[in-house]
């Protein structure tokens, strides 16, 4: 294909600009990574700001990874993310699909009621009571079920389904397919980008999730990664009158940064996989004939 000169200039400008964006976004992150590798004494001496540390230490990582709770917490997070995201997507898909059918009676009302919950919430105490009464405390379900459908994501998916051409569905229905069939054979294959995106949103939500676990899980063997990491990070001694004694080993800056990096790595790996599904031209050939 012949590329016009204008097009080529545009490409270069685009690339240059995006590289700038990437650097601006990345630089502070790199700075944090470098801090996580710098030994404390060097940090104190230079006060950070050296993107390439003069000395490197893996001490912080060793310390975190050898904390008895960490491997367990990591597993917990993996399970919660995998199971949670699957449930999220399944529920979101089967709820968004009917709501996207323009002719469904009551559709507007239902959508309104669903959107209502985005803005109105009963608060912590009733939720706590609910989780307690359902017997979900100290289980993975306490973290997975309350957020099983994120309304924002639901509306996104519904919007996406609505943007798919009606003709495709009609064609399938005329062939005698049931709604379920249409959903699985026609709609979903065309929805890879949105499923991938929502999978990313839900997945990241679980991976970084902290509040529900903090509220409902007390058994330290079930805690997910973020909660454990936060406990490592948080200064136990907010009140300087408290422990004049040095039992508490203050987390150095190095350690704090290392916890951030550790939590980030799976996220880094997730996106390229997700992006594979953002292939263009999903609709080519689907309407022909």
């Amino acid at each position, binding site marked *: 294909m012949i590329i016009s000169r204008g*097009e080529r200039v545009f490409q270069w400008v*685009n*690339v240059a*600009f*995006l590289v700038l*964006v*990437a650097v601006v976004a990345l630089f*502070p*992150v790199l*700075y*944090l990574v470098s801090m996580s590798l710098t030994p404390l004494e060097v940090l104190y001496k230079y*006060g950070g*700001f050296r993107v390439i540390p003069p000395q490197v230490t893996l001490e912080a990582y060793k310390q975190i990874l050898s904390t008895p709770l960490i491997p367990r917490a990591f597993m917990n997070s993996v399970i919660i993310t995998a199971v949670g995201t699957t449930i999220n997507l399944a529920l979101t898909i089967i*709820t968004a*699909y*009917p*709501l996207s*059918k323009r002719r*469904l009676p009551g559709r*507007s009302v239902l*959508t*309104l*009621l669903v*959107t209502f*919950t985005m*803005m*109105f*919430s*009963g*608060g*912590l*105490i*009733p*939720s706590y009571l*609910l989780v307690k009464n359902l017997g979900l405390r100290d289980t993975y379900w306490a973290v997975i*079920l309350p957020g*099983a*459908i994120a309304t924002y994501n639901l*509306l*996104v998916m519904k*919007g*996406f389904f*609505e*943007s798919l051409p009606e003709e495709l569905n009609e064609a399938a229905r005329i062939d005698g397919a*049931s709604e*379920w069939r249409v959903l699985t054979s026609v709609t979903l294959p065309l929805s890879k*980008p*949105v499923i991938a*995106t929502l999978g*990313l949103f839900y997945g990241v939500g679980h991976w970084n999730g902290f509040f529900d676990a903090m509220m409902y899980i007390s058994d330290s063997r079930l805690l997910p990664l973020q909660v454990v990491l936060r406990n490592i990070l948080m200064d136990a001694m907010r009140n300087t009158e408290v422990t004049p004694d040095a039992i508490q080993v203050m987390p150095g800056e190095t350690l704090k*940064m290392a916890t*951030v990096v550790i*939590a980030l790595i799976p*996220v880094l790996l997730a*996106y*390229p996989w997700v*992006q594979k599904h*953002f292939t263009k*031209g999903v609709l*080519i050939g689907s309407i022909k004939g």
Partner: protein
Amino acid sequence: MGIGLNLRKYAPLYIMLIPGIVYYLLFRYGPMYGLIIAFKNFNVFDGILGSPWAGWTHFEALFKNPQFTRILTNTVVISLLKLVCGMPPAIILALMLNELRGQWFKRIVQTASYLPHFLSWVMIYGILFAFLSPGTGLINQWIKGFGGDAIGFMSDKHWFVPVLVLSEIWKDVGWGAVLYLAGLAGINPELYEAATVDGAGKWKQTWHISLPGILPVIMLVLILRMGSVLNAGFEQIYILYNPNVYAVSDIIDTWVFRNGIEQMKFPIATAAGLFKSVIGFALVLISNKLARKYTESGLW
């Protein structure tokens, strides 16, 4: 007869809705009775239903406090600024990323651009401090090097809000672009090919194909953001602010935190939350109507 036919026809769809409806009823509508805490003097032993009524007391505490006008103004100003300054960059970034040829490069740039989303504001504070603090901040050192006076970016009330808005853009533009990219991926490439054949340049293609293609997504995001116009970003502000910038950055949520949550006086927090919810929902209704009227794409 007509209704019976309809129901049977739509039965499979309704059946599909059942798990979702159960979820919403159980986990979202079930706990909603907690909202009445805003009207009660909540007492642990009488429980939510048994506690004595307080009427509008908590709302009065919120509305009549000497700072109310200020916190409301700040909340709206900061929130709208973040909206107006934050959405376009995310869209533009998505459009630009969409134009990239090299898949590998595209993934790298995009992953890089959304990494800041995962940093907590506590971490980001450290970075902002390193750049912007009046004494040791890099930028101020440059300014002083050129003979100028240090600027208190984070302690001066003329600079603080721009810092808030810009740092939030930095943090979230990459993540915000993900959704628009997904939308762009769904546009039929034949449209672009046809346009190229017709001689349309990049700008025309963007304006006439790309943007209309993601218009539903943009509208969705916009409408829902109207719903949280009274959430100006508590965590960020709480971490970044200091008494010298209260005047411009004290928002409803920070006030509620000091007067309600920190004091374990949760009914005030519930009342403030209810206030925000009502306004937010009204705005969603209005913007949805407007969106439907002018762009034919709304939530319902």
